[in-house]
C-alpha cells in the first residue's frame, strides 16, 4: 500500500513528517550515511549574529538513556552562514530552517531581517529555550511576555515560516505556546532540552565546565510527549514534537499525541541513519494499519 507521508506545517509543505533537530545535524553537510530522501526538513545549528566560541570542554556527559550537553551555541555567525552554507541549502530538495538566537528581542529581529530573502533559507526556528547561555535563551522561554516580544520582533522582519522552540522548564507550557501563537508564530517546536547536572566524583564538581547542561535522548521522551501534547491542546497552530525519538514508534507517540511533525536529534549521534529509519518505520506502520495519509492517523486530543 502506497502511503502519503507529506505534511503541512503552516504554509510549509514537507515531503515527510521527520526533520533533523537543531544542533544535532550541524549545517546538514556533515552527517554521512543518511538517506536524505527521507528527510522532511532540517533545522540548522543555532546561530547568533556574531561568531561565538561556545563553552570550554567538557561539554557533554552521558547519563542513563540520555546525555547532557553545554555547547553554548558555538557558531560562525550569520555572515559565514550566508556565505558558506545557504548556497548549498538552496540546491537541496528539502527546506532548511535556521535556528536563530539573540540576547535581546531586537537581536533576534535583526538576525531574521538579515537572513530573510537569502536563497536557501526556508524559514526560522526561534530558540528561546537554550539552557546553555548566560543571557537570553531559556530566560525568554519561560516568560510569556518576553517570548511574545521575541516572536513579534522576528515576525515583523519576515514572511517566511516562523517556528518557536519551547523550553520544558516552565510550570505551564500552554501559556507560553498561546503567547507566541498570538504573537504570530506559524508553529511551535516542543521541546528543547531539560536542565540537568552530573557530578564528577573524582573532582567533586560538575562534569561539565558550564556546570549544568541540557538533557536529551530517550530518557526525556515521556516528558517531551506530555509537553508536546499540552502545547497541542493549548494552540491551533501546528506543534512539532521533539525529544528522545529513536524509532518509528517514538515518533508515532508524538503524532498520536497531537503533533503535526517531529524532529530527531540525539538519535542521529548514535545512528547516523536514524531519521531515515524513523521515516520508513512510520510509513510501514501506516501501511500495516491501512492509513493512506497522516490525516487518517487517530489523534488523542480530548477537549477536557
Amino acid at each position, binding site marked *: 500500500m502506497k502511503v502519503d507521508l507529506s505534511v503541512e506545517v503552516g504554509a510549509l509543505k514537507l515531503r515527510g513528517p521527520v526533520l533533523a533537530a537543531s544542533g544535532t545535524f*550541524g549545517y546538514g553537510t556533515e552527517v554521512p550515511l543518511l538517506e536524505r530522501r527521507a528527510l522532511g526538513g532540517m533545522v540548522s545549528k543555532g546561530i547568533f549574529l556574531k561568531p561565538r566560541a561556545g563553552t570550554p*570542554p*567538557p561539554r557533554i556527559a552521558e547519563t542513563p538513556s540520555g546525555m547532557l550537553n553545554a*555547547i553554548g551555541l558555538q557558531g560562525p555567525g550569520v555572515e559565514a552562514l550566508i556565505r558558506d552554507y545557504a548556497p548549498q541549502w538552496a540546491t537541496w530538495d528539502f527546506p532548511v530552517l535556521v535556528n536563530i538566537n539573540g540576547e535581546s528581542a531586537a537581536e533576534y529581529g535583526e538576525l531574521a531581517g538579515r537572513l530573510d530573502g537569502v536563497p536557501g533559507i526556508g524559514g526560522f526556528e526561534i530558540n528561546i529555550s537554550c539552557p546553555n547561555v548566560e543571557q537570553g535563551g531559556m530566560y525568554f522561554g519561560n516568560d510569556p511576555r518576553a517570548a511574545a516580544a521575541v516572536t513579534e520582533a522576528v515576525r515583523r522582519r519576515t514572511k517566511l515560516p516562523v517556528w518557536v522552540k519551547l523550553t520544558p522548564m516552565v510550570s505551564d507550557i500552554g501559556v507560553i505556546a498561546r503567547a507566541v501563537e498570538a504573537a504570530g508564530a506559524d508553529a511551535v517546536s516542543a521541546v528543547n532540552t531539560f536542565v540537568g547536572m552530573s557530578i564528577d566524583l573524582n573532582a567533586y564538581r560538575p562534569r561539565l565546565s558550564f556546570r549544568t547542561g541540557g538533557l536529551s535522548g530517550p530518557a526525556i521522551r515521556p516528558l517531551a510527549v506530555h509537553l508536546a501534547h499540552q502545547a497541542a491542546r493549548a494552540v491551533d497552530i501546528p506543534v512539532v514534537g521533539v525529544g528522545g525519538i529513536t524509532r518509528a514508534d517514538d515518533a508515532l507517540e508524538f503524532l498520536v499525541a497531537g503533533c503535526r511533525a517531529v524532529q530527531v536529534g540525539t538519535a542521529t549521534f548514535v545512528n547516523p541513519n536514524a531519521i531515515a529509519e524513523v521515516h520508513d518505520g512510520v510509513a510501514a506502520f501506516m501501511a500495516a494499519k491501512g492509513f493512506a495519509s497522516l490525516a487518517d492517523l487517530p489523534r488523542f486530543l480530548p477537549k477536557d
Partner: protein
Amino acid sequence: MWVLGFAAPEIAASVKAGQFVNIGMRPGPLLRRPFSVYRVEGERIEVLLKAVGTGTAQLLALREGDVVSCLGPLGRGYDLASAEKSVVLISGGLGVAPMPLAARDAGAAGLHVTWVHGARTAAELCSESDGDEVILATDDGSAGFAGTVVGASPDAGLVLACGPNRMLAAVAQRWPAAQVAVETYMGCGTGVCLGCAVPLARGGYDRACTEGPVYTASDIDWAALPSHLAYALTLPSPASGRGAA
C-alpha cells in the same frame, strides 16, 4: 589491557594510523565509544582497551560471533609525508593504541622508527611493541628508563605522540611541531554535536572527531584542555590478555 578483534573489511582496508572507530552496542550505553584502531590483520581490525566503565565492560563481555556497530575510520590520523629520515613514536599507557599502525605506515614511508613507550609501572607496560628501536620507560623505574617518556626519548624532527593529555602537554613543550592524538568525550564522532571541543592556541575550539584527534602540538591551548577525563583515570588494570569477538 585487552585486545578485541572485529571483522570490518572496509575499515581495515582504509584506516590510517591515529584514526578511530566509534563503537555502538545494543543493549548498551546510549552513546557510541570511540577507540583508536590498534592493529589491522587482513579484514580484521583490533582495538586495545582497559576496563573502565559501562561501555568497556560490555565490550569485554562480547563473545566470538557477537556483532557490534562499528563506524569509521573517523578523524584525521598522523601525517607521515615528511622530509625527515626518522620518526619517534611516543606513547604513554593506553596511548600505545595507535602506534602499531603508526610504525607500519612510517615503515612503509621508509622512515627509521624509534618507539618510546612509557607507563607508571612495568605491570602496566604493553608487552608488544614494533619499530626498529624500542625504548621503555616507567615512572617507578620498575622497567627500562626511570622517568617520563619525554625524558626518555631521543631528539627527532618528526614526533608522533599519544597518551594522557598531561603527557601530551609535556611533549608539546619539548616538540611544538609534534603530532599528538588527544582524547575528548565524543557525542557523535561525525562532526555534528560539537561535544568534542579542543581549545586552540589561536582561540576558539574545533572538533577532535573531525579536525582531530591528531593535532600539531603547538596548535592546542593546553591550559584549557581538560587534563583528565573521568575514564582516563588510572584504575587497577586487569592482567594483560587477549579477548576476541
